[in-house]
């Protein structure tokens, strides 16, 4: 099936070339990081995780969103989702690859990466994150490839694949739960030390992930004429808006708990993010933009009629996706480190080289996504 990836239009090859260019820029930036160390980033002794780990956290959620197609299709026999299911699974593959690349980019000594396998340490949540992320990657490659191949041969998929399809449901939940556990089990980091974190991660993931899928499907529609089927995207839009409502509700639960209890070490981080703390507040405009985008996105998409209109669905999904990205990809990690355990404030802003590395990594993920989607849509159009 891979041959479909090497037969494409000029636009396709132009896009591939563009991604390769971005990847080489990223590689050049990463070379700087390898030779000089993580000093080229904006991170510091106080803010030890930054843009890389935040992107990883956000993208785990986007990867997990395939389950929002698998559950309706396989547990509720909602067969309309059958046609875009493969896009969800291949999206998960590309996103998990992105996650792994961002983790490796964040390591100070990447040449020792295999120490995690050589000295396995189950008391570390990072060990389990490695297990669940790689497992999820394999499951989605397997399920996506096998079902697509059967589709091409126009036969029913083999029965054994059902096991992996059902397995992918709890596994998708696990990847984001374990990722939340990385943070919420740490004493002395008030912003993350909350049982609601994993639930919030899942809620924002099931908003941002399907929103991303809707947007990518529209792009595929424009360039390949791929038809997801009537009403499929608007139904998925319902998932997006309900999940975002749950996410905001959980955030408000957190805000109430923190501010009614008045525990300073828990209040400080939310204050820093939303109103500034002791004169520092580099993320304040971002966080409010995220909130406004989330609320406007919800207001647009909560109206069933709006979801039926392509333009409004796209705008709503864009707002919710960007809102969730700011919340998790900028505020969640940086906000947890400011102020530090000694109540000192060191702010964090990613450096240009750090953003360059991230750009290259994103380009790599999109290259994988493009190739997989090219194959999937090529197969679908071949059998029609």
């Amino acid at each position, binding site marked *: 099936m891979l041959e479909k990836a090497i037969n494409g239009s000029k636009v396709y090859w132009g896009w591939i070339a563009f991604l390769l260019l971005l990847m080489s820029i990223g590689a050049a930036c990463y070379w700087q990081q390898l030779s*000089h*160390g*993580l*000093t080229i*980033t904006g*991170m*510091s*002794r*106080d803010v*030890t*995780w930054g843009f890389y780990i935040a992107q990883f956290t956000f993208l785990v959620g986007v990867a997990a969103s395939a389950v929002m197609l698998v559950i309706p299709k396989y547990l509720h026999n909602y067969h309309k989702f059958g046609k875009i299911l493969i896009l969800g699974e291949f999206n998960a593959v590309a996103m998990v690859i992105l996650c792994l690349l961002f*983790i490796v980019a*964040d*390591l*100070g*000594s*990447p040449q*020792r*990466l295999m*120490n*995690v396998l*050589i*000295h*396995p*340490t*189950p*008391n*570390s*949540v*990072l*060990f389990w994150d*490695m297990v669940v992320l790689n497992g999820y990657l394999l499951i989605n490659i397997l399920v996506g490839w096998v079902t697509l191949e059967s589709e091409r041969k126009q036969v029913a998929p083999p029965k054994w694949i059902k096991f992996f399809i059902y397995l992918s449901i709890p596994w998708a939940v696990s990847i984001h739960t374990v990722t939340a556990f*990385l*943070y919420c*089990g*740490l*004493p*002395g*980091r008030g912003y993350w030390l909350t049982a609601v974190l994993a639930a919030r991660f899942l809620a924002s993931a099931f908003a941002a992930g399907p929103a991303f899928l809707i947007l990518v499907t529209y792009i595929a529609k424009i360039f390949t004429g791929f038809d997801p089927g009537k009403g499929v995207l608007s139904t998925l839009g319902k998932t997006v808006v309900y999940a975002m409502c749950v996410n905001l509700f959980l955030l408000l639960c957190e805000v109430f708990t923190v501010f009614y209890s008045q525990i*300073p*070490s828990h209040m400080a981080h939310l204050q820093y993010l939303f109103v500034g703390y002791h004169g520092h507040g580099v993320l304040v405009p971002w966080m409010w933009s995220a909130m406004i985008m989330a609320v406007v996105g919800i207001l647009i998409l909560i109206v069933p009629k709006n979801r039926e209109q392509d333009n409004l669905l796209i705008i709503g999904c864009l707002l919710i996706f960007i809102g969730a990205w700011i919340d998790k990809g900028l505020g969640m990690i940086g906000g*947890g*480190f400011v102020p*530090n*355990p*000694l*109540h*000192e404030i*060191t702010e964090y802003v990613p450096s240009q080289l750090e953003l360059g590395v991230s750009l290259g990594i994103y380009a790599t993920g999109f290259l994988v996504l493009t190739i997989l989607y090219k194959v999937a849509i090529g197969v679908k159009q071949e059998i029609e």
Partner: protein
Amino acid sequence: MKTQRRNFLKIAAMAVLGWGVRPASELLAAGGGTASEGLLFASRHKVHVGPNALTASRWAMVIDTAKLNEKVMEDIVHTCHSIHNVPTIPGNQNIKWIWETHMDHLFLEDLHEYQPEAGAKSALALCNHCDNPPCVRVCPTKATFQREDGIVMMDFHRCIGCRYCMAGCPYGSRSFNFMDPRKHLETTNPDFPTRTKGVVEKCEFCAERLAEGKMPACVEVSEGALAFGDLGDPESEVRKLLAERFSIRRSPTLGTKPCVYYLV
């Protein structure tokens, strides 16, 4: 007949399970044969002692904040950092093993606005060598581990630089080598390893000096402000001080059981 067979199978299964798990659990948690660490779970490493070594069941430090002054603290920080090849790096990507900070940063929950001078008073911060260390719990490679005598140590050759321990430490006691530290060393102590870029480091209670029968360097130059000894020995200096004087620890409510005590 049927129930008998079922019972037999049950018992047999239990027996196999128990027989299989028990030795394995010992292997996983403790010695791990010839290796000095648990195979899977972080565990306490045995301390290898020489003839003159100072040993304890639980090392602890007591800092008498009343005896600290600018000069003593400067001496302590300078001595520690120079013998351990800790570089002086300007900016916020710096490295600190032991450093001066205000009381109101050390004891966030204990100080109030009516003691502006007491709050601004300086004291020393360092690794607390917690009895229940979060850094050891989160490390994915056991590069940071706890010895049987309580000292939390680093293996600079195993650390992958993920910095999870730094997120886990609620005391900000750990530093990361964002860059090659050797470029920022004026002089190098050949008896202690220098580090490379990309690994985490911190105070190790001078484990290398204890092995030679010497007290930690900071204690030696502290002019009596710092005491160091065995918590397990009721006759030790630290136990006597803790029995006589009121002491506090940093963020004890987090359950980390810090082993650095401050006399106030």
